[in-house]
Structures are given as structure tokens and as C-alpha cells.
């Protein structure tokens, strides 16, 4: 069975958005900073709703922030 990974560009987009901190992103997305840390490190895959909220915080599409890799 192939392993499915969802990679993300959170760190890159945070720095592109005036070096947004993890806490600021967490506030905008409505989650805890620990969750942003876990997502950024690839240890937690967010729900679709949260993925959309994170993408909106950057003003991007979900596809730009999260990449589906097989």
C-alpha cells in the first residue's frame, strides 16, 4: 500500500506574509499554536475546514498551501 503524504507550505507563506508568527496564524485560523506547529511539521493533517481557514489567512487557495503527494 502506498503511503499518502500531505505536504504544506505554511512556513514559506508565513515568511512571505510579513514573517507572520505561528501564534498569529493560529489566531487567524481559530486553532491553538500547537496545532499550527504540528501541521507545519507534517505531524497532523488538518480537516478540510481548517485547511480552508489556513489558506484564507494567507489569501491563497488550499491547493497552494497543501500539496497532495502519493
Amino acid at each position, binding site marked *: 500500500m502506498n503511503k499518502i503524504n500531505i505536504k504544506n507550505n505554511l512556513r514559506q507563506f508565513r515568511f512571505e506574509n510579513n514573517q507572520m508568527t505561528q*501564534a498569529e496564524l*493560529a*489566531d487567524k485560523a*481559530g*486553532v*491553538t*499554536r*500547537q*496545532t499550527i*506547529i*504540528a501541521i507545519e*511539521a507534517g*505531524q*497532523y493533517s*488538518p*480537516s478540510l475546514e*481548517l485547511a480552508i481557514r489556513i489558506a484564507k489567512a494567507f489569501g491563497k487557495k488550499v491547493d497552494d498551501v497543501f500539496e497532495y503527494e502519493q
Partner: protein
Amino acid sequence: MNRAQKIAVFNLVVFVSASLITAVAVTILYYIFGWPAAARGMGFVGLGGLAGLSPLIFKKDPGTVTFDERDKLIHRTATRIGFVSSYLWFCLTGTIFAVLFEPALFKRLGLPIMIFGGAFVVSIVRSIAVLVLYGRGRSDE
């Protein structure tokens, strides 16, 4: 360490301590007075009630969001693991105690150990699961 992790550590310490103190008390009373008196050592199980103080001791974390979808998932998974382990506990003790105790003693000592022990197993395993699920490979939380 967030609030949930602090509560898990506190509960773990309380329940493990209460279990050990109870086990020691029952063992000592058994060797001095025999089985019927040993049941009185079960009173130390009440120390587990200190876990109820954890929400008062650990105040909510600062910040607008304190509990999100990941926390919910972790708590749900930990609770499931806790209850599965309690099922194993009941199967194991039900078999062992039936062999170990005669019917009268089972009612007096075996049954309380099964019931309170089951509750303790749920709490201990759940606390460990919460810590493991939060802490996997991270040092910056």
C-alpha cells in the same frame, strides 16, 4: 506543555500513587490480619479522588483558542484506548480472581478491586495516551 498535558501528568501521578498505596496497604494488612481485614486497605482508593482537583489547579491557557479539532481528536483517541484497556482489565481480573478468591472473599475484596481498578486503568491509560499523542516527536509545545 499545554493544560491538557499538565492535567494528564497530574492524574497519572494521583492514580499511580493511589494504586501503589492501596496495594501496599492491602498487602501489609493481609500479612498481619489475613484476608478479611485486608479489604479495609481498599479505603486508600479514595486518594484517586484528588484527580478531581485538576481543573481547579490548572487554569485555562491564555489565548483566544484553547481547544481545537486536534485536541478533540487526541482526547477521543485516548479515551478509546483507555476503555479498551479497561475491557482487558475486566477479562483478566475476572478470570484470575475467580481462581484466587473464594466466593465470599471475591464479593468483599475481588469485586471492589475489579471495579475501582477498572476505573483507575481507564484514567491511567488515558493519561498516558494523551501525553504520547501530544508529545510525539515534539519538544517545542
